[in-house]
């Protein structure tokens, strides 16, 4: 029997689908909700949104710098703006606009990075965003979020819409199962998917799911109780939760669809070190090399971001 069958994990849609459905629902009772696209409404699953609310969708064409600048201008006039573009372009080409026009000028834009990480797989590194957490963590006045499943995605979008400060939210396009039935999502607060004692996995975005499968496998194989926490908010870090983690767990593994540099792992490492916690510690992500070619699944497996790879990393960490 597969681990997923034993888990009774409910299947879900792609977080991208949940994002567009949520946005459509928000726009239906708030005319101030505006989507800005850079020829990205198809990739953002926003064609139905554009048909239903043509007055609430602004198309800027393939011009991501302009996308963010215009979004900031709209937000300064009270629009609840969602600037939607592939994460790779949004956070690299428009980095200066995010830094100055959104964050520094405090225009509360919701920056939505679609097909984030290595979602675009074989399209190659031009289309990957493995730098976005690192780059944006160094920008003041920006909440950074990577939801794990459909529930987290919907809640993150709703809470971002209500937030009076800028948000960067990124997700992929692969169908994700619901990882927990506990309705406990709050921006800035990590979400415990599974409790544990022997070790904990701090994961974010689409890597939470294989982390959960790995934790279950380790229980079956070794009777280890491995906790899994969805650290959907990369910034601000949930320091209260990390403090508990630092006190409670002898081993911590972080997993992210991002460079091993500058993301969730290094943020947690810095926190533990400065608080005097010294668990056994490992960062899993995409190493600092030319990323292997292949689909998202193949890239994940190549770098061990899979049920067996994560379980193996924990075995290594605990022995």
């Amino acid at each position, binding site marked *: 029997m597969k681990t997923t069958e034993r888990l009774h994990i409910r299947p879900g849609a792609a977080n991208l689908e949940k994002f567009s459905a949520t946005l459509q629902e928000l726009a239906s009772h708030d005319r101030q909700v*505006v989507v800005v696209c850079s020829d990205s409404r198809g990739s953002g699953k926003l064609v139905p949104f554009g048909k239903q609310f043509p*007055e609430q969708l*602004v198309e*800027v*064409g393939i*011009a991501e*710098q*302009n996308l*963010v*600048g*215009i*979004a*900031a*201008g*709209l*937000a*300064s*006039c*009270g*629009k609840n703006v969602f600037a939607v573009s592939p994460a790779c372009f949004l956070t690299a080409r428009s980095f*200066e*606009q995010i830094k*100055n*026009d959104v964050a*520094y*000028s*405090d*225009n509360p834009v919701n920056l939505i990075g679609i097909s984030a990480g290595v979602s675009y797989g074989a399209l190659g590194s031009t289309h990957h965003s493995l730098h976005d957490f690192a780059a944006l963590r160094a920008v003041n006045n920006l909440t950074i979020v990577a939801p794990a499943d459909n529930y987290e995605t919907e809640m993150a979008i709703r809470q971002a819409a209500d937030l009076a400060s800028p948000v960067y939210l990124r997700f992929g396009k692969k169908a994700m199962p619901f990882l927990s039935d506990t309705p406990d999502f709050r921006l800035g607060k990590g979400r415990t998917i599974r409790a544990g004692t022997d070790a904990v996995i701090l994961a974010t975005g689409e890597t939470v799911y294989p982390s959960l499968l790995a934790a279950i496998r380790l229980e079956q194989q070794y009777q280890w109780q491995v906790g899994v926490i969805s650290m959907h908010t990369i910034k601000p870090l949930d320091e209260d939760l990390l403090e508990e983690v630092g006190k409670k767990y002898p081993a911590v593994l972080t997993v992210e669809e991002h460079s091993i540099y500058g993301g969730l792992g290094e943020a947690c490492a810095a926190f533990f070190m400065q608080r005097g916690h010294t668990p056994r510690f490992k960062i899993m992500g995409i190493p600092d090399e030319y990323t292997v070619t292949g689909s998202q699944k193949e890239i994940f497996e190549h770098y061990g971001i899979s049920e067996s790879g994560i379980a193996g990393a924990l075995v290594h960490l605990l022995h």
Partner: protein
Amino acid sequence: MTDKQLQLKSLELRKKTLQYIKQAGAGHTGGSLSCLDILHVLYRDVLRVGPENFHDPDRDRYIQSKGHSVEALYVVLADNGFFPFSELDTLCRYQSHFIGHPTRKVPGIEQNTGALGHGLPLSVGTALAGKMDQKPYRVFTLLGDGELLEGSNWEAAMAAAHYQLDNLTAILDYNKLQITGPVEEVLHSGPLPEKWKAFGWEVREVDGHDIGALRKALHSVPFVKGKPSFLIAHTLKGKGVSFMENTLKWHHGVPSDEEYLLAIKELEDQQKALLV
């Protein structure tokens, strides 16, 4: 105010600009002096905005894209009552809000600018919001000629024409010098009127130091209904001080004591000549 009164005041504001740059020991002298008449006319005669209605959603917006010429903007804002001139004594000092580029911590400033090529996209978004909500406000932005080499301006230019933003006016402070040398030598960027026309804007040209002509041009926006307006204001970098005019070193040169006194005397002489 009459044109002559505004001219006299412009000379006074030039003196203030030099005074604060001298005090701070830093500033973009040449560009501030080239755009000062434009800003003065905008705030005294064109923009429907002041300290009393700065938070009114229907106010006119001015976004200074060439943020480095902030000293002229500070002086004009102070002259319009947004804050007392005395606050400018803190220019570029530790913990002052009055830094070398505009920030929203200063009353009257709409957006934090300074990196070039950002003001026009911000202005397009602001103008677009006005159109979406059928607001009466207009949006004005000031661009530098060297700044036009930034590609983001041209992205925004296309979007403004596409969305027929006739509530948007971009003014070019066309002083023809940038930090390295003449704009045309650094990188050929013309012909500007033809380029902006081709991008779907209605273009006019004006002497950027002729107060009457500036008033007339800025009161006639939109130049054409359904199109964004582009006003090329021909200006002189360092305008008003003979040894600063059209001279590269005054891009961000700070006058010595002797140069400062000389500059103030020149401006005072011009004031006297106007009063005769």
